[in-house]
């Protein structure tokens, strides 16, 4: 009788995996990853706002801003590592997970791009210099929150 119950329980557990945990197309929502990525995105948005207000127009301001860039890059690196470990149940979900990691790294690349511009020429406001970074990081934040119910 115990054996029958055990087999029955195992069957139910197997079905539960089939119906409940099936991240076939996209990884499940991860609240911690969402919080970390959103926090990094908020820092990016603040950086962009400061640039658009003319704070970084002079390239000499780069040295004093390096720590801000580094903090953002560190936060994005942590988020990327966490996103890369999301559980998946199939090739397409793994593809979606890898894309999410790619979006976070894309955000990071855009932050590096702005930093390079800042260092070389300064960031003149109203010259279209910050939008690409905002787009890249917006997509990263949307991707990690996409499966939130």
């Amino acid at each position, binding site marked *: 009788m115990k054996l029958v119950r055990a087999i029955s329980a195992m069957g139910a557990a197997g079905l539960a995996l089939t119906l*409940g945990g099936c991240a076939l197309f996209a990884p499940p929502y991860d609240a911690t990853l969402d919080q970390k990525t959103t926090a990094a995105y908020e820092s990016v948005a603040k950086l962009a706002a400061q640039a658009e207000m003319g704070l970084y127009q002079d390239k000499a301001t780069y040295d004093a801003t390096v720590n801000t860039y580094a903090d953002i890059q560190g936060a994005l690196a942590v988020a990327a590592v966490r996103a890369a470990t999301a559980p998946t149940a199939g090739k397409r979900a793994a593809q979606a997970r890898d894309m999410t990691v790619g979006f976070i790294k894309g955000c990071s690349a855009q932050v590096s791009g702005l930093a390079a511009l800042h260092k070389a020429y300064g960031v003149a406001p109203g010259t*279209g210099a910050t939008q690409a970074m905002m787009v890249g990081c917006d997509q990263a934040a949307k991707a990690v929150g996409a499966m939130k119910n």
Partner: protein
Amino acid sequence: MVDFASLNIDNVDDLVSTLEDELGGVSTQWWNANKSVVAGYLRSLAEATMQTRLALANHQIPAEAADMIMRNQQLAFNQTLQFTKFMTLVLAQQLLDAAFRVIGWVIYNKTGVNLAPSLVQPTGGTAMA
């Protein structure tokens, strides 16, 4: 078909419209399926492009800086194309979850067996056996 040699765009709306026509021209099917995701990013690209063009024309930024800015825009738009693929996968997962949330509840409400614990999360109610 755009006559590129005489392309003379001075405002964001015209640039958005031209970009939409071009993308739709490459693939109507792709554009119709993804325009709701892409439209906002396309406008952002158009706004930034007009800003960069103006700044370059007014010698507010050197050509090298404009080149860096446009390269970042190209990377961002490439990511936007990836993002449309990603959202298709997310939609498929949401459809799968929606269907099996219903099925999970149908089974749970009649048997008390929760076969989809990540989708069916009773809040203290008693299942009907």
